[in-house]
Structure formats: C-alpha cells, structure tokens
C-alpha cells in the first residue's frame, strides 16, 4: 500500500513527488513519460529563476530534482482508472494494479482529436498533430490544416515554405488569433482559407488521398490532399480520474486545496479547471495537492 500514487510526471506531478518525498510519504509515480507537454515548448521565459530556457532543458532540471530523491517511478505505463474502494484507492494501469491511500491525477493535456472517420486509421499516414515535427515530410504536396486559431495558423505558416498548396479548414466565420499571423496567411497565394467549413471524413488507401468537407450548408466537397494537420487545440487527459467530477471542458474540478469530489483523490496542473495553464501554475498546484494528500493521511486513520 502506497501513501500516495502520482499519475503523470509533468511539472505538476514532479513537484508533487518532490514534496511527498520530503514528507517521507511512500510514493509511486506512474507515467507515460517524464516532462509531458512542457518539454515541447521551444522556449520558456516565465519560469522564475530562468530568464530563458527551452522546455526540454527545464524538464531535464525537473527530472534531475525528482531523481535526487529515492522515489519509485514507473514509466511507459498508462493509468486507466483510479478507483475509490472503502477507505483507499486502487490505481489500475495497463501493466497492473496498485493500491494507495491517496492519489494525485496530474496527467495534463493532449492534442484534441477531430473525431471524424479515417482520423485514427490514417494517423501517421498523412494525419499528424505535430506540424513542427512532420511538416518537412510534405514537401511539394497538397495539405489541409484543420483549425482556425494560432496553432493552426502557425502550422499553415510553417507549411508555406514546404508544401505546394495549403487549405486552411476553419469551422468558424473567420480566423481567430494574432493579427500578424492572419495577415501573413491572407497574403499567401499558397493558402486557401475555407471558413465555416466542417471536416467530415479523411480517406485514402495506404496514405491519405483526400478529405471531405462541407462549407456552410452547401454540398460536400472533396479536396485532394496528402497531408492533414489537425490543430484544434488540446483536451485534458482525464482518463485516470474515471468517475470524478469534471466541468463542461472535461477538466477535473478541484478546489483551492486541489481536492476533487472523491475523498483521497486530488488533481493538479493542466488537467484541472485551474484558470491558467502555465508551467509555474501546474508546479504550484502539484505542491498544494501533495501537501493536501499529506494532511488527508494525517487526519484519517487507516487499517492499511
């Protein structure tokens, strides 16, 4: 029986682990990877103590700090559910089950999926969620970018110098984001903006050949493209908090103590309804959640 199991090892999870180690709680960290989304930020200029650091380097520092303590860590493991039993919790993963008195869900966020036929089938076969990674593979090809915000425009701008033709498929009336980017997109003769456009299906053989879209209420149109860049924001990875209360954005609802509606279950960082999704805010919540878990155990007597 662990005192605390932390699910996720981004800024929130790592900070929670450091705090629990200092409280000498018997802790297990279960995570897919160390660092999470934060490691993907090209530069971080607002984490106190570092005027300028890459996400990757900052995460490296976090990891060093984490590993300076004797904390048990299981990487490459996916948590499916944290289940409330009588007076403790059971963490169910793809590699086994673990029991604990308290748990913190700190799983962060992941790219939002579109949810149309063909999206999963053609993932990495023309469908990508990382323009920064995969854009160079679409040199001279026709592509579609799905989305109308800053990240979609950023993807389109990156593709301007690489792809042959770029369709920007925007579900809203107009692009929403930085004026500088909108201007750049509108000036480019490579980009065709399709507003009020709904993506219906992604098709192909081995790789993507085309997408089906519908503009306003008009007839569906087929666009021949070899690449589909999905940039429609992110969603919380709330899977492990199965049954926990969430808001309309699927974020886990926590109070100031990072408590959820399930006694003994806490949540921290970007997976929660905290108003600002920032590395430093996530780290701060990790600290609160860990101290709350410690107080919860101190207050309750368990027959562990």
């Amino acid at each position: 029986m662990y005192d605390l199991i932390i699910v996720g090892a981004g800024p929130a999870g790592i900070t929670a682990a450091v705090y629990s180690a200092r409280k000498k709680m018997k802790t297990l960290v279960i995570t897919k990877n160390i660092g999470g989304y934060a490691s993907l930020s090209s530069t971080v200029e607002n984490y106190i103590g570092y005027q300028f650091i890459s996400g990757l380097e900052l995460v490296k520092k976090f990891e060093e700090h984490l590993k300076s303590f004797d904390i048990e860590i299981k990487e490459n493991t996916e948590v499916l559910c944290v289940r409330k039993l009588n007076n403790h919790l059971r963490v169910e993963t793809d590699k086994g089950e673990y029991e604990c008195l308290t748990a913190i869900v700190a799983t962060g966020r992941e790219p939002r999926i579109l949810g149309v036929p063909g999206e999963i089938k053609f993932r990495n076969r023309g469908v990508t969620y990382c323009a920064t990674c995969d854009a160079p593979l679409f040199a001279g090809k026709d592509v579609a970018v799905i989305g109308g915000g800053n990240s979609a425009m950023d993807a389109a701008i990156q593709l301007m110098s690489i792809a042959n033709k770029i369709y920007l498929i925007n579900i809203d009336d107009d692009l929403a984001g930085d004026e500088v980017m909108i201007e750049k997109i509108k000036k480019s003769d490579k980009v065709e903006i399709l507003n009020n456009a709904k993506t219906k299906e992604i098709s192909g053989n081995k790789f993507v050949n085309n997408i089906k879209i519908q503009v306003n209420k008009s007839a569906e149109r087929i666009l021949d493209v070899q690449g589909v860049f999905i940039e429609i924001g992110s969603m919380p990875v709330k899977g492990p908090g199965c049954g926990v209360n969430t808001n309309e954005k699927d974020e886990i609802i926590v109070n100031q103590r990072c408590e959820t509606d399930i006694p003994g279950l806490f949540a921290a960082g970007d997976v929660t309804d905290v108003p600002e999704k920032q590395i430093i805010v996530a780290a701060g919540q990790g600290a609160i959640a860990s101290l709350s878990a410690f107080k919860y155990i101190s207050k309750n007597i368990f027959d562990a």
Partner: protein
Amino acid sequence: MAKIKVYSTPTCPYCRLAKNFLKEKGVDFEDVDVSVDRKAAEEMIQKSGQMGVPQIEINEKIIVGFDKGAIERELGK
C-alpha cells in the same frame, strides 16, 4: 552492437528527446535529417508505411515515435 538510424527533423521535440535518450544510453546512431534528405524520407516512409518522425531503426525494426519501452526492448535483444 546494433545498427541504429534515427530519422528526424531538426524542429521536432520528440526527435530530440529520442536522440538524447540514445545518447544517455551511450549507443551510437546515425541521425538522418529527413527535412533535407528527401530520398531518405521516401525510404523511411516505404519501410515503415508511416509518415511521421521520429522513426528509430534498430536491427532493421522500425519504432515510430519516441517510445522508450520499445527502444529499450529492441536494444536489449
């Protein structure tokens, strides 16, 4: 020693994570930048049937994405 090739692009964070991981393991690898080497890009897509980086080729087996567990398993063989 296994022959290892990492197909990557310079801007891709997961590629950097994968390469750092291999460096930490102390294994030698060939870094193939598919953003400039179009022929290598085609070769990668042909071999794996997948268009995404990073792809890590170890002993002719291709691992798509940065999957620590899969890399470790393949290195351990």
